[in-house]
């Protein structure tokens, strides 16, 4: 099996065996296939791209064509143990609404995204006066799908405002897992942020 993306590898540990998972923007289904094989997880992946749907089917993943901007109306309240969205929230038209949908449908939400507060992004904007591009953010400002980039602070502020409880946070970098500087100053040194979320009752 090919090597998992860093954030996927990491969040696998947050998911209990034999749980039921909904993966928003599942791409080629790598995560769900991995969870199925390593943790006997069942579930569905939502994906909009025809090419990715073919690949996910090849990976024997239950993939459903869906536009995340239309919400999760096809799914009932708490019909999944986890609703996962890896590196897709920044492409969503209304991340705030989708987050609430995730926590309606899932018992727990797991979100990962590229941290716009990473020092390289700040450096680029501060010294070059240009929108940052990096390994985690490879596109130009005009053709990027990333229309709602945020920093760890931004994301956490949204969670507070929406009554979402953060039960775990991790930051990783694209090639290595994590480091002491990341743990100390995550918003500056974390390239990719990972969150486990609950809806406060």
């Amino acid at each position, binding site marked *: 099996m090919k090597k998992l993306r860093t954030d996927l590898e990491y969040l696998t540990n947050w998911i209990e065996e034999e749980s039921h998972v909904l993966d928003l923007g599942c791409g080629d289904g790598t995560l769900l296939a991995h969870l199925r094989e390593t943790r006997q997880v069942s579930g569905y992946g939502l994906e909009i791209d025809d090419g990715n749907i*073919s690949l996910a089917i090849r990976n024997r993943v239950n993939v459903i064509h869906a536009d995340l901007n239309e919400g999760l109306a096809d799914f009932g309240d708490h019909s999944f143990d986890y609703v996962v969205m890896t590196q897709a929230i920044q492409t969503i038209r209304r991340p705030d609404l989708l987050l609430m949908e995730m926590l309606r449908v899932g018992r727990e939400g797991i979100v990962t995204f590229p941290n716009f507060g990473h020092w390289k992004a700040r450096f680029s904007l501060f010294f070059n006066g240009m929108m940052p591009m990096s390994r985690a953010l490879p596109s130009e400002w005009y053709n990027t799908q990333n229309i709602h980039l945020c920093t760890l602070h931004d994301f956490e502020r949204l969670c507070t405002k929406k009554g979402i409880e953060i039960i775990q946070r991790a930051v990783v970098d694209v090639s290595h897992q994590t480091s002491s500087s990341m743990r100390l100053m995550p918003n500056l040194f974390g390239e990719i942020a990972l969150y486990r979320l609950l809806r406060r009752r």
Partner: protein
Amino acid sequence: MPDILSPDSVGLVTPQTHQFTNPLSLECGRTLPSYELVYETYGSLNERRTNAILICHALSGDHHAAGYYTMHDKKPGWWETCIGPGKPIDTNRFFVVSLNNLGGCKGSTGPNSINPETGNPFGPDFPIVTVKDWVKSQARLGDVLGITQWAAVIGGSLGGMQALQWTIDYPKHLRHCIAIAAAPKLSAQNIAFNEVARQAILNDPEFHDGHYYQHKVVPRQGLMLARMLGHITYLSEDSMRKKFGRELQEGKINFGFDVEFQVESYLRYQGRSFVNRFDANTYLLMTKALDYFDPASQHGDDLTAALANVQAQFLVLSFTSDWRFPPSRSREIVKALLNNRKRVAYAQIKAQDGHDAFLMPIPHYLQIFQAYMQQIEIPGEKS
């Protein structure tokens, strides 16, 4: 006419007929004491009989789904796009069975068959058959062929409805269900179109209450109109604009009611050629089977409950420009499966061809279809 047969065609094929002598009781309450089903097969059945695929046809389809009868045939079977060596339904791996449904007019017992009790064609006396009845007769054909479990049951449109019915009526007898451009039941608009088609046939003076065979005539005008109307609903506005636009046959308007626009000529041609290959009573029956299809009705109108016991894995496909059975109708099936936590993959394919897209060589469609078929496991298959 194929000069040489393409290597990805099943090639020359010959239909077979089986005579069933055990009576078939139908949903309408009547019984067919005996009947025949005509079918074709492509590829070969493996030793363990685990690689069989059943193809269910749509409204005007038949058992001739792939290949040619002779080297002089103008056209191959209706699903040549998808069935053949290396195609999505790969005859190198699978043994494919395609039949003409009961009530059809291509060799299986139907209104134009002789009623043994009277010595005349059944005509309007042929019982109304339903999707459920078809599935029952298909299961009997499976028994005859020694197939206890299909690797997959596959169909587009009305064929997809049969595949869906299979998963409800015989959950253990298929491993995969592939329902393309289908719906869990018809909408009022769908039924309305069918009713106009039926009225066109029923009101044709040559219809003779369905006994036109004895009068040595066919209700040509009615059947032609029915087909023309149907054909409009199978295409999309886009595909019609692309195909015909407002192009004129003679390059100018003639201020008359003869054929002027190319779309008129096309529809008339489609209607006329249909009359030569299809039976009006069968058309009436098939549209009724469509109208009546509603598996949820037996479960308190709850499709989720209707699909609670299915065991097959599903592939559901829809096409963006299909307004006869639009993606939202396929999603109803998907949602009911999700509610039951059943295994399902669903793709909504971008296509301009309307409902007919399921017959077209659309790259993304074939790619997704093939990806699904390739991951179907065949017990006993050497990898």
